C-alpha cells in the first residue's frame, strides 16, 4: 500500500480497501451518499483539502446511475482525491456540501442545471448556468439530451435579481455587451450613491456547450477544443487536456518536450501578466506604463510567433509532447529577449509603485480577505494575493517543474496592489524558470507515440497551473474508448464569487480596476 493511500485512509477514518490508488498523484474513494458531507469535512480539516472541482456524470447506460464526483487537491500529499458517489435516477438528488464549503456553491448548481440532479439543503439552489429562457426539464449534459438544434425559448423573468430599496439606493445594470473590447457578462450593482452595496453576477452568456462538444469529437481533435476554452490560456488548458489523456493511456512524455512545455506555460504567464499589469494602469488612467506594458507584450507575442508559429501559442502543445522544437539559436534569441525584458519590466514596476497617485488607487482597493478567499475556494493569482500559498506547479508538479527552483509569491493584502504584486513577482520567477530550462534543454524526441485507442471505460485527471490559476480536466472514456465525459474546470469558475465578494464597500469607479486585477475569463467560466 502506498504511503499516500495510508495517510488518506488514516486521516479520513476509512478502511484500507475503500481507497484506490488510481495512478500516481490520484486516489479515489467511493462512499455512500450519506457519508459525503462528513467525508468532505474530514478532507478539509485533517488533510487541508481544497476543492478543485465538482461534477456529475451520466452513467445510466453502463451502471444504471448518475455519479457525483468531488475532486480535492491535497497539496501536502501532492495528490488529488476523487470522491465518487452514485445517484439513483429514481431519486435525482445528492447531499450538498455548499453550506459548509462555499467553494462547492456554483459547482453544485451547475450539476443541477446540466444534469437535473438537485443538491439537497443547498443554501441558494438557483440556476447558475441556465438563463431565464431555458425550458424546464431539459438537461444538456445528460446522455439522452437530443442536441439537435435550437432549444425553444421560454418567456418570463424567473430568477429576478435581489432588489434594493431605500432612499438614494438604486441598481446599475451593466452588460452583457460591455463598453470595452472584452467578453460579455452581466453585472448588477446595488449602490447607495457611489459605494457599492453588493454585486450580483449573471454569467454563462458565452456558454458554448464545450463539455458536450468534447463528447462528439474524436479525442485527438479534443486538443483544439481545449485550446479554445479560454483564448488567453491556450497552453494551460491544452496541457491539462494532454496530461489527462497521457495519464489515461500511460504515455510518457519525452524529457525535451517536458522542458519545452514549461517554456510555453511560462511564456503564456508572462505575456498575460504583463498585459494585465498594463491594463490595471489603464484603468487608473496611468497611460505611460500602460503603453509600455502593451508594447512589451506585443514584442513578446511577436517573438512567440516567430519561434512557435502562433502569437497566442495555439497549436504548440501536442498529445504526448510538443509540436514545435526550439533551435539553439531560437533558445538564445529568447534568452536575450528575456534578459532585455527583465530590465524593462523592472522599470515598469518601479514606475508604478513609485507613483503616489497610482498606489493611492490600488492600495486597500477591492480587498478579498484571506478568510473569504479560503472559504470561497479562490485559486491562482487571486488566492496567492490573499495569503493562500497554493500553486499546482509546486503542489502537484508535472512536466519538468519537479526539478526547477522557483518561489511561489504570496501577498497578504488581498487588494488590487497585492494582485498586481503577485503578478509582478511571478513574472520575475518565470524569467528565472525560463533561463533555467533554456540553459539546459535536454535532447531527444518531441512527441511520444500515442496508442491507436484510449483504454475503454477509464478516467484520469490532468492539470496545469495556468497563468490565472489551475486548469483541471477530468476525462472519462466509454466502452469503445471514445470520450464519454470531459469536465473542464477553469480557475475563473472558482474566482468569480471572489470578485463579487471583493467589490462591495468600494466605489463604482473602482470596479473596473478591481475587475482587471482579477481578470477572470468569461469563456473559461461559461465554456
Amino acid at each position, binding site marked *: 500500500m502506498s504511503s499516500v493511500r495510508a495517510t488518506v485512509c488514516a486521516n479520513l477514518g476509512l478502511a484500507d480497501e475503500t481507497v484506490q490508488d488510481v495512478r500516481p498523484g490520484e486516489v479515489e474513494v467511493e462512499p455512500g451518499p450519506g457519508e459525503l458531507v462528513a467525508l468532505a469535512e474530514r478532507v478539509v480539516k485533517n488533510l487541508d483539502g481544497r476543492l478543485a472541482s465538482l461534477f456529475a456524470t451520466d452513467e445510466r447506460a453502463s451502471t444504471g446511475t448518475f455519479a457525483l464526483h468531488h475532486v480535492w487537491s491535497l497539496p501536502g500529499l501532492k495528490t488529488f482525491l476523487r470522491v465518487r458517489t452514485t445517484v439513483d435516477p429514481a431519486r435525482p438528488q445528492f447531499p450538498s456540501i455548499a453550506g459548509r464549503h462555499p467553494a462547492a456553491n456554483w459547482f453544485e448548481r451547475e450539476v443541477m442545471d446540466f444534469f437535473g440532479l438537485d443538491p439537497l439543503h443547498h443554501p441558494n439552489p438557483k440556476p447558475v448556468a441556465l438563463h431565464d429562457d431555458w425550458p424546464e426539464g431539459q438537461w444538456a449534459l445528460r446522455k439522452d439530451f437530443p442536441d439537435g438544434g435550437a432549444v425553444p425559448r421560454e418567456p418570463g423573468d424567473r430568477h429576478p435579481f435581489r432588489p434594493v430599496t431605500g432612499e438614494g439606493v438604486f441598481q446599475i445594470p451593466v452588460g452583457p455587451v460591455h463598453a470595452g*473590447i472584452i467578453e*460579455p457578462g452581466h453585472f448588477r450593482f446595488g449602490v447607495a450613491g457611489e459605494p457599492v452595496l453588493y454585486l450580483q453576477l449573471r454569467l454563462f452568456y458565452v456558454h458554448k*456547450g464545450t463539455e458536450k462538444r468534447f463528447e462528439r469529437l474524436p479525442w485527438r481533435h479534443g486538443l*483544439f477544443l481545449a485550446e*479554445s476554452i479560454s483564448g*488567453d490560456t491556450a497552453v494551460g488548458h491544452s496541457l491539462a487536456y494532454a496530461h489527462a489523456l497521457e495519464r489515461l493511456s500511460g504515455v510518457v512524455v519525452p524529457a525535451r518536450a517536458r522542458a519545452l512545455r514549461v517554456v510555453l506555460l511560462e511564456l503564456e504567464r508572462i505575456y498575460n501578466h504583463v498585459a494585465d499589469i498594463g491594463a490595471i494602469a489603464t484603468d487608473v488612467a496611468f497611460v505611460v506604463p500602460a503603453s509600455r506594458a502593451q508594447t512589451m507584450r506585443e514584442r513578446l507575442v511577436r517573438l512567440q510567433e516567430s519561434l512557435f508559429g502562433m502569437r497566442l501559442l495555439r497549436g504548440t502543445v501536442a498529445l504526448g509532447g510538443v509540436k514545435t522544437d526550439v533551435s539553439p539559436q531560437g533558445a538564445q534569441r529568447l534568452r536575450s529577449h528575456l534578459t532585455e525584458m527583465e530590465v524593462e519590466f523592472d522599470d515598469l514596476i518601479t514606475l508604478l509603485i513609485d507613483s503616489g497617485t497610482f498606489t493611492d488607487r490600488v492600495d486597500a482597493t477591492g480587498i478579498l480577505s484571506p478568510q473569504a478567499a479560503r472559504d470561497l475556494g479562490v485559486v491562482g493569482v487571486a488566492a496567492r494575493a490573499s495569503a493562500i500559498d497554493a500553486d499546482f506547479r509546486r503542489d502537484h508538479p508535472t512536466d519538468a517543474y519537479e526539478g526547477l527552483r522557483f518561489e511561489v509569491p504570496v501577498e497578504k493584502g488581498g487588494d488590487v496592489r497585492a494582485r498586481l504584486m503577485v503578478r509582478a513577482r511571478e513574472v520575475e520567477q518565470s524569467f528565472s524558470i525560463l533561463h533555467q530550462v533554456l540553459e539546459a534543454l535536454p535532447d531527444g524526441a518531441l512527441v511520444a507515440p500515442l496508442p491507436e485507442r484510449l483504454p475503454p471505460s477509464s478516467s484520469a485527471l490532468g492539470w496545469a497551473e495556468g497563468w490565472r490559476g489551475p486548469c483541471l480536466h477530468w476525462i472519462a472514456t466509454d466502452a469503445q474508448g471514445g470520450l464519454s465525459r470531459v469536465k473542464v474546470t477553469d480557475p475563473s469558475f472558482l474566482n468569480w464569487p471572489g470578485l463579487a465578494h471583493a467589490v462591495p464597500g468600494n466605489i463604482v469607479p473602482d470596479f473596473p480596476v478591481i475587475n482587471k486585477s482579477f481578470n477572470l475569463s468569461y469563456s473559461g467560466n461559461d465554456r
Partner: protein
Amino acid sequence: MFRIIAGSLKTGRVTEAHPLSRRPAFGFPVIDFTRCTACDECASACPTGAIRAASGAPGQRTVSLSYGACIQCRECVTACPEQVVSAGREFEIAAHTREQLTHSASFDVDDAGRATFVRMDVQPGPGVAESASRLRDRIQGRLGRSLHVRQVDAGSCNGCELEIAATTNPVFDLERFGIHFVASPRHADLLLVTGPVTRNMEIALRRTYEAAPEPRVVVAVGACGCSGGLFGEGTYASVGGVDRVVEVDVYIPGCPPRPHAILNGLLVAMGIREARQNPSGPTRHTDPLLSGDARPEALSFFLRPPVKATGEI
C-alpha cells in the same frame, strides 16, 4: 515626472511603419488541387470540417477547403500523403460571403479508384468585386476616413478579443487609420462581431445590431464568427456563425486572426482595400496594396516614416 519623459524620449516611436503584408511562418493552408488525389486524409485530420471530401455522382469526387472554418492548426499539412497541402504564408484574408472563402475542386475517379483533377469549381453567389461594389453602394462613401467600431463578443473564447485589442496597442496603433473603438453601438458605423453566436448572446447581438444606426456594416471575425468553428452550428448552445443572426458584410477568418488580418478586414469593409479570399489561387490580384512589399499607395496618407528605428519588433 522627469524620468517618465526621459524614458519616453528614449523609447522613441514604436509604431510599425508597414502594418500590412507581413509574412509570418504560416497563414492558411493551400491545397494544390492539380496534384491532389482526392483521398480524404486531410479531411479526416481537420478538426473543424474546413476540409471536406465528398463523393457525388458515380466516378466523381469533390474536395473543398473553407478558410471560414480553418483554425490554422496545420493538421492537414502533416496528414497529406502526397504533400500537396502546404502552409501558405499569407494570412490577410477577407471576403464578403462565406462562399468566397471556399475553394473546391472536382475530380474524376476511374475504376481503379484513382482520382484526377478536372477543374476548380465556381462558388455560388456574387464574386468579390460585385460584393464590394454592393457594399460601396450601400455605405455611399459615408465612412470616409473615419470609422467608429463597436466590438461585440457574441460567444468567443476571447482569443479574437485579444487580437482585436492588440490592434489598438502602440505598435499597431489602429487609430492612425481613422479607426476608433467606441463604447456604444449607437456611436458605431461598424460592428466587429466574434462568435460563435451562443444561444445566450443571440438576443443581445440582435439588439446591439438594431441599436446601431444605418448604414451599419457587420464584420464577422474568427473561424467561430465566420462559421461556428470548433463549436459547430445548431447545437443547444451555439447558434453558429454571425451570419446566422445578422447579415454580414465582411468575413475575417483565422483562429484567431492576427491583428494585421483584422486591420486588413476593416480596410476592406471601408472600401480602401480589395478583399482577398485566396492566398495563392489561380487568380492574381491587381490591387497595388496586395503586390508584395511595395509601399501601399492608398495607405500612404496614413503612413509616415518612423522618427527613430527601434529595431525589429
